[in-house]
């Protein structure tokens, strides 16, 4: 039915299967949209945020999804600026993931503020000394860059490309993509960093505060570094998940392994820096304010914030995946590769959770206690919404756009006839549940 839109030389599942799949994801999306409208109309009392928790699930989701979308800027940096040509086979997908992540982040921010109609004040009445100002500007600008990087892909759709202007436009944009990638890398460095600066500059919150250099706390650099390290892991994870769902190899192993190796070494560097930073904070910074390390990890309800969380973040989700990814064997073995990328993704999500939620939960006044928090259903629905949106975006993009340059080579078909374009058992798409099952519980809010 829609075969004219499908790229040449590849097979896709029948339209009805595709529509069923989109419909299922769409239902989840609608649930989220309903919750979002409730929040817009009734206000932030729809959440379980309170005066102790000014930032909660959404801000965590924002930070997590931006960190995970860091694969776009870092892969772009490696491909266009460092010139690692092999990555051209995965950069399109990385850009798509980045586009989904950043549009989700902006969407969430729009309803997270108390007065959405005044959201433009952050631009118009900008306080240049605030980390959040920096975040808002760079996020928005980088989203423009991602649009610019994604648009050529859309223009390469078989039918759209037939229009000469669009064809030429796509070609020209590709030609100077390095300039956009460089700008994107510059912007990303700063907004990833500024998100780290958000807790880092709060000198009256000893759990979040860090010393730093000039106006930048160390968390600024740690956040950028972790996004550059774990973003590609997320790209690898989603690529392999997509391959599982569509039951096709889409990217050659050597490309994945190269990206995994680079990611592994970035992760190694990051985790060393993180360990040093954590030690210094626990030994010097926090004690100067009257807090020992264990003050931040004891006496909280249900031990939700026990020392296990620090060990998990650094050792299980930092050191372990780094060790796996820097070894050939670790990268080539599918089980260890999957484990490593999932742990790295979890690690960066956990880091963002700790730096926002634990900061706010931990009491500072000595006569106050830990503040407990659990998100409301509206918060959960709106956080799952970008996950559904991502599924839909990836599905549509995969179906109609030449996202994977190596797909044809890896999946040769005799001749692009109408029979070949009908379903083989691409019923894999129907069998997988709407939320990509292996990912869902491990990647609770890809949004």
């Amino acid at each position: 039915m829609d075969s004219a839109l499908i790229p040449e030389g590849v097979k896709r599942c029948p339209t009805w299967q595709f529509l069923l799949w989109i419909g299922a994801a769409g239902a989840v999306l609608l649930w989220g949209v309903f919750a979002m409208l409730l929040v817009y109309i009734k206000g932030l009392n729809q959440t379980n945020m309170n005066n102790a928790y000014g930032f909660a699930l959404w801000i965590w989701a924002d930070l997590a999804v931006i960190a995970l979308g860091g694969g776009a800027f870092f892969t772009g940096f490696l491909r266009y600026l460092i010139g690692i040509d092999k990555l051209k086979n995965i950069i399109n997908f990385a850009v798509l993931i980045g586009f989904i992540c950043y549009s989700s982040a902006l969407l969430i921010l729009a309803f997270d503020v108390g007065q959405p109609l005044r959201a433009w004040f952050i631009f118009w009445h900008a306080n240049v000394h605030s980390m959040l100002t920096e975040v808002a500007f760079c996020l928005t600008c980088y989203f423009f860059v991602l649009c610019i990087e994604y648009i050529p892909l859309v223009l390469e759709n078989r039918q759209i490309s037939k229009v000469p202007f669009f064809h030429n436009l796509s070609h020209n944009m590709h030609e100077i993509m390095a300039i956009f990638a460089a700008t994107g890398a510059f912007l990303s460095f700063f907004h990833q960093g500024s998100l780290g600066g958000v807790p880092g500059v709060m000198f009256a919150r000893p759990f979040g505060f860090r010393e730093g250099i000039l106006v930048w706390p160390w968390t600024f650099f740690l956040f950028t570094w972790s996004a550059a390290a774990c973003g590609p892991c997320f790209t690898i994870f989603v690529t392999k998940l997509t391959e599982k769902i569509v039951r096709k190899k889409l990217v050659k192993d050597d490309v994945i392994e190269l990206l995994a190796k680079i990611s592994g070494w970035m992760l190694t560097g990051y985790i060393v820096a993180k360990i040093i930073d954590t030690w210094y904070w626990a030994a010097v910074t926090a004690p100067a304010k009257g807090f020992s390390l264990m003050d931040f990890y004891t006496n909280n309800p249900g031990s939700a914030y026990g020392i296990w969380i620090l060990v998990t973040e650094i050792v299980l989700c930092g050191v372990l995946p780094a060790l796996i990814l820097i070894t050939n064997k670790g990268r080539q073995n599918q089980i260890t590769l999957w484990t490593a990328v999932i742990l790295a993704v979890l690690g960066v999500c956990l880091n963002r959770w700790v730096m926002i939620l634990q900061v706010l939960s931990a009491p500072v006044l000595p006569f106050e206690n830990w503040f407990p928090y659990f998100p409301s259903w509206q918060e959960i629905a709106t956080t799952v919404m970008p996950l559904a949106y991502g599924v839909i975006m990836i599905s549509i993009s995969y179906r109609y756009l030449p996202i994977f340059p190596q797909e044809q080579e890896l999946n040769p078909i005799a001749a692009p006839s109408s029979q070949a374009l009908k379903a083989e058992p691409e019923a894999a798409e129907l069998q997988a549940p709407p939320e990509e099952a292996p990912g869902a519980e491990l990647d609770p809010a890809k949004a």
Partner: protein
Amino acid sequence: MKHEKAKKFGMVIDLDKCTGCGSCMVACMAENNVPFREDDTDKMLSVFWLHVYTLTNGKSFPNYEECYLPRPCMQCEGHHGHSPCVSVCPATATDYDMNTGIVSQIYTRCFGCRYCMGACPYHVRQNNWWDPLWPDGMEKSLNPNVSVRMRGIVEKCSFCFHRYQLALDQAYMENRRELEEHEYQTACTQACPAGAITFGDLNNPAHAVHQIAKPDIRHGGKPGNPKAFRLLERLGTNPKVYYISSREWVRRAGDNYLMNEGKVRRS
């Protein structure tokens, strides 16, 4: 006004006198049009600019002691006007005034990002999670000098800044530029039946707050009075609310210490 010394309005709260009656909280709510809900039991969602805490010494009978601690906005100065909440606001909706020492909150500018709420360690900032609703007829008792805030906006104690403006207006009309100590007083100060709260200009040696707290300007406003302390002194927020207590455990309860740490900071 150019050549006059900058003022630093601050408060001294005598915890030996505070009975925990809550009159200050009520007066503040009435004076500043602070909204409330029909069911206000969840205090984490309530708006209360002044909050009275109950502190205990953690011992059991017969050594149990408690103390009531009213906590308005600390109007932190930080280092040279860098209050923890001011520098983080992305829309410049809050500002530290070097002339009065008061941290303002511009309700029409705030778009409710709540970063300032996270930055404040004292939880003095609250968000309007709902639109304010006044019972029928009560809107007539609202203070016309204080704007009402809407949903999504963060608010906090302003040291009754509108009273400062009114007092200045009065002085101007009388051809004066300086205010007497009694001309600008906050609602909570005046409401306290025990006289536990004293308010005035910390920079003015003639004012009671200066004489009681003896702030050391060269060392971040640290109190010279051995009975005086400030909450979370070690964080470097340089707050303007000083507490007096003759009880050692109360003074210690105002800050965090490491195990086995005395009053002197451990190296």
